[in-house]
């Protein structure tokens, strides 16, 4: 096994998944893209190969709903690479509260993908990482999981469940030298569109977010907010909810 990293990127077709894969490849890491839509994965692979011709990029089809297949997928990944495997997960699906109100099945779907599938994949991957004795896990969280907002509290609740699970998972893995970092992204336009708040006016840049994820991957930290002032945004929402009003609506 070499000291080089191979990042397994879940949700590789998503904007942050793509951005992370680009940043990781540019930093010289090999990439294995995992996702459901093969056409998207093929395009993402071509993109990465054109951007970083010196790294190995492959893709594997993975249906997030088919949790029984995760063990086989991770075994295949292990066969594919001689490097240390690390995991980045941007796996998520998101619906607005309005959509969830019309169809409660969407909430079930969000819990399936945002919570259950991720938990199953990370559990399956943890065995491999424990065998390696090193590696990083970076999971994309959300400040929506910290405080219920009228337009996305169903989505936020799935993230809240994931955050709690990740807290425990961090403790379990850290004792074996593997660090699980949760990046809580603030106001990214997953659900609810581009909200604008009083103190700042820009949605986080996916590229900057991906850079932050890669930076924090090796720092052994449990939780980081992106942007860094996202923490204050959560405090503001919690203690001064009246200050939080969309300027754009």
């Amino acid at each position, binding site marked *: 096994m070499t000291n080089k990293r191979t990042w397994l990127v879940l949700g590789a077709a998503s904007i942050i998944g793509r951005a992370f894969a680009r940043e990781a490849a540019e930093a010289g890491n090999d990439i294995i893209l995992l996702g459901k839509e093969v056409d*998207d994965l093929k395009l993402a692979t071509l993109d990465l190969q054109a*951007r970083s011709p010196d790294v190995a990029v492959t893709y594997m089809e993975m249906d997030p709903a088919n949790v029984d297949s995760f063990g086989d997928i991770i075994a295949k990944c292990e066969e594919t690479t001689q490097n240390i495997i690390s995991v980045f997960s941007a796996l998520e699906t998101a619906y607005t509260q309005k959509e969830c109100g019309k169809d409660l099945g969407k909430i079930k779907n969000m819990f399936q993908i945002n919570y259950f599938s991720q938990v199953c994949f990370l559990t399956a991957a943890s065995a491999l990482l424990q065998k390696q004795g090193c590696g990083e896990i970076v999971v994309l969280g959300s400040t929506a999981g910290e405080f219920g907002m009228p337009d996305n509290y169903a989505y936020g609740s799935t993230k809240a469940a994931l955050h709690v699970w990740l807290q425990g998972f961090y403790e379990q893995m850290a004792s074996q030298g593997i660090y699980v970092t949760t990046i809580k992204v603030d106001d990214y336009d997953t659900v609810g569109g581009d909200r604008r708040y009083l103190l700042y006016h820009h949605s986080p840049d996916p590229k900057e977010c991906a850079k932050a994820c890669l930076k924090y991957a090796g720092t052994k930290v449990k939780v980081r907010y992106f942007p860094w002032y996202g923490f204050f945004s959560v405090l503001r929402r919690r203690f001064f909810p009246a200050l939080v009003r969309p300027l754009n609506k």
Partner: protein
Amino acid sequence: MHWYQMKLLGRAQTHSSDSQVCRPDTVADVSKYMEQVGKSGIIARGSGSAYADQALNSGGAVMMSDRLDRIRSFDEKTGELVCEPGLTLETITHLFAPRGFMFPIATGSGRRTLGGAIASNLFGMNCRKKAALSQAIKWMDIVLADGSTVRADKQNNADLFSAVIGGQGLIGFISLISITLSKRPDRNVHVVRRRCANLDALLDALRDARKSADFCVAWVDTSARGAAVGRSVLKTASFTADPVSGSLVSMPKIKRGLPRFMLNLAAMPLIKDIRYRLSSGKADKIVPYEDFIYPSDHFGVVSPKNVYQLRFSFSEAEGPQAIRQILTELSEMRIHACRAVVQPTADETVADLAFPMRGYCLSLDFIRRKGLEEFLRHLMMIACEHKGRVALCNDALMEMRFLFRMYKGLEAFTAARKKYDPQEKFDSDFARRVLKEDDNDE
């Protein structure tokens, strides 16, 4: 597939619109979104670099292309890059400059998307003859109003190809582009900066630079009067194999412009005078190519907020006279442009609404204030008299009477629009302001 209700702004924040906004993740999604567009039309929006209302559509739909930024292939031998329209110019430079390639034109800002650069017929600081963007484009896939995708190049669907370049997104959505990146002769550029005491000296220097330099741009002091009209600081650059070195003191790399109060009428001439005097008589340095290009992205005396930008293009024959007249009127009227730049331009022959012609480009930024519009229309009239053009990509004041006189290819553009988008599904505030002026009058 989500549509968001959003308020969008032009870069100068002089225009805004409330629109339904979509962000396709893949090229395949573009056609699906197109099917959902209603009568109020749709316009593509890249990085939102257009100063005014070119990428706004009040009450209609706007399609953001920023997520369509995948590269499909790159040929290391020929430099052919096939990519989606949301790829920014700075990303292209960042990825391919280390491999010995460069984007065919060196623009002031690298934040523009490739699709936006094509739709606005962008030009750069290049002095060479073959420096027009259209020369480098091999083909484009364009999603038309009916959702179908058509490939256009200089031979096949040539009318569509010509109309889309510089067409402000009013013909179709550019979904895939094949562009040939230029081979970069050397890794570094030799930058020479020198003062020109007046317009005659500047024009002489520009003529010389066109023959000898690869890039050229001059900052002009619009507050200078009398014999000093047109005094300027000229920056030329040429590729060199020499290592990085330099005696030239660079301007600090700052991202925010000066505060507004420093740009008022009284302070502006003083700032310009200081800037001119601080520039040494002649200085040079050798810098990496990546550090030389995109100067607007890391140095801005004036933020584009609340600014009108007028870009004039003149032929080599008419240019000197026209530029002199405009600069003289500015100094006599004591209307100071917060940013004024002169640069040589290469001829653009393919686009129907081609802005650059072989000659000179004068770019002026004015802080918006009461009564300014009338004066700027007067400047546009001067441009018309000198057979010049005003760039549509950042324009906020264009009128049909000017458009007819400035753009000879307008008829071909209108015919292409009727052919490929008869119901005018691709529509924008800019199109309603400029192209439908007669309808509005009725």
